[in-house]
């Protein structure tokens, strides 16, 4: 159990920066997810935490103790590697037992712990096999087993369930979360799957291009993204972005576009600071903050033409063509509109966002 502080950390591979000036504080016992697209520096961060990669600049502290120069074995972390890194010449049992053996645990403890972990991960029947005789998902669970078999200060999970099927993944999400809460061990969990981060983490650190974009609880990240990039990355189906003109001043500010003109709520006008009063901005609306109807509604609405309907199990996703972009709307499966017909979209203005057209930061 430890509070993990990452302070102004940089990682350079030769001349290319992979992590840029990262600052994070993971509270003791929290479940922190590092979320970002491929190549954004998630694994680099994890490897610096584990002591496998030199820290180019900055400090990493566990409980206020600087650990930059500590060897991996002295950091007392358990890591699940992105590429599993199992020991090919050892059986599954011995793979999982390895950390305990290195700590000279008794044979009885080892047996007990390994069997416990295997049962939790549903790999009890595989204990005698070697890694080459396992599927990708099974290997991944062995790698998790090797990490949870002891009780370290800090768990580092690098995309631990990316190779499991959807059902097993949902199951493992629950198990990992439960395990972390039961043990109370700080967990840093890397994923590029926003659903995983939103559903499991206490805090999410969203990274992009080696830079921390936003730190917050899942609901903060989802409901109050700090910029258009975070807003677009988090949420599935992704948020709709429409570039629109800001019109008016004082109270009567509207967003104007060829297909609509919608006034901002009174409380939102103040958040658009003066600089943005005239000019363009990017409107962001999630597909479930839009309501589609085939008749013109009373309030302000977006006019468009249905492009295609996609059935997503219990929901229907309708793509609507505006003049320059398409917007996606979530609706119920009994929606009767056909491609080519004109429709109207009403925006739930409590849930929409306006981003700066330049640097993309959120006004609200």
């Amino acid at each position, binding site marked *: 159990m430890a509070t993990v502080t990452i302070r102004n950390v940089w990682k350079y591979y030769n001349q290319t920066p992979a992590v840029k000036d990262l600052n994070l504080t993971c509270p003791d016992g929290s479940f922190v997810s590092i979320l970002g697209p491929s190549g954004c520096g998630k694994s680099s961060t994890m490897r610096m935490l584990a002591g496998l990669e030199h820290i180019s600049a900055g400090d990493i502290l566990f409980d206020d103790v600087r650990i930059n120069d500590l*060897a991996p074995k002295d950091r007392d972390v358990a890591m699940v590697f992105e590429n599993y890194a199992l020991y090919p010449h050892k059986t599954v049992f011995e793979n999982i037992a390895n*950390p305990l053996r290195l700590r000279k645990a008794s044979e009885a403890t080892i047996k007990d712990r390994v069997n416990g972990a295997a049962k939790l991960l549903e790999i009890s029947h595989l204990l005698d096999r070697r890694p080459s005789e396992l599927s990708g998902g099974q290997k991944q669970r062995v790698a998790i087993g*090797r990490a949870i078999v002891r009780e370290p200060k800090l768990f580092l999970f690098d995309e631990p369930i990316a190779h499991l099927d959807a059902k097993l993944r949902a199951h493992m999400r629950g198990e990992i979360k439960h395990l972390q809460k039961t043990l109370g061990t700080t967990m840093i969990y890397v994923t590029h799957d926003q659903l995983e981060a939103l559903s499991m983490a206490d805090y999410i650190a969203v990274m992009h291009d080696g830079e921390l974009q936003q730190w917050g609880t899942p609901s903060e990240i989802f409901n109050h993204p700090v910029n258009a990039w975070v807003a677009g990355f988090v949420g599935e189906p992704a948020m709709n972005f429409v570039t629109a003109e800001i019109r008016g001043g004082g109270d009567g500010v509207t967003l104007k576009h060829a297909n609509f003109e919608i006034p901002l709520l009174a409380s939102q006008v103040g958040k658009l600071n003066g600089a943005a009063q005239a000019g363009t901005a990017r409107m962001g609306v999630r597909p479930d903050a839009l309501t589609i109807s085939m008749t013109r509604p009373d309030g302000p609405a977006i006019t468009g033409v249905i492009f295609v309907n996609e059935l997503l199990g219990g929901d229907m996703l309708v793509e609507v063509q505006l003049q320059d972009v398409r917007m996606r709307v979530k609706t119920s499966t009994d929606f009767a509109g056909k491609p080519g017909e004109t429709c109207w979209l009403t925006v739930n203005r409590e849930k929409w966002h306006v981003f700066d057209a330049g640097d993309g930061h959120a006004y609200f």
Partner: protein
Amino acid sequence: MASRDVVHYDTPLQRVLRVLAVIFVVLYLIWTLLPFVIMFVSSFKDLLAAFKLPEVGDWMGIGVFFDFTPTYKHYATLFQENNFGRYIMNSLIAAGGSAVISVIFGSLAAYSLSRVDFRGKSDLFFWIISTRMAPVVAVMVPLFAIFRSLDLVGTLPGLILAYTTFNLPFAIWILKGFFDNVPYGIEEAQMVDGATRFQAFTSILPLVAPGIGAFIVLCVLFAWNDFLFAAIIGSGGAKTLPVATRELVQPQNIQWGAIMAAGVVTTAPMMLLGLVIRKYLVTGLTMGAVKE
């Protein structure tokens, strides 16, 4: 893993080629095995019987080769009069000692060269290999001078050192290839699991075991069969089998029977070794080349 079955398409040309291949293999087998057969059979023959040959062209007379009463007297001579027990020990110690030393230092050096990046690494590596490029004879005289001034001539440690000088670069070169093929992630996982760097290194040794095995065999073979070092640096106190065999050739009396027996004594252990580790040797030498 892909299936190992190779699909064959039988064309007339292929059938002819197959027959030719069989003929070639048979001839080649005779060519390579016959000397050993003659050596083995002759070592059990009287001197008179050994030189009983059929007429040239008389293929039926081939039976005279096998028409003799076996005798073990040549072997008795070797061990009772010529002290061959001692020479076998010398050969074993020299070959085994140099193999063990080379493998220990070789794997440590190879591991570092494979895992650690430092300035001048490729130059260092090239220099290590290049020490093997000069023919042994070329360095023999200076080496002898050095060994003599260190009082190593004629001693087993001297011979072991001489073999190690030549085996170590070879060990580093072979083993580096094997370490290169072991993913570094395995050691990283070990270190996070709580291993020291050295424990991480020893933990991957089983993965390079085929390489180590292959190297030990080549190294033992080199030392066991060596004549040059043994004759010059080992002469006197550290006589090995090839040198001792050579000494059976005396100006007025070439002891053919004893020489044949000595040949058998020298070759047999290596052949046995070859048979025992054959499987190992093949996987060892190919594993370095094929990426998993």
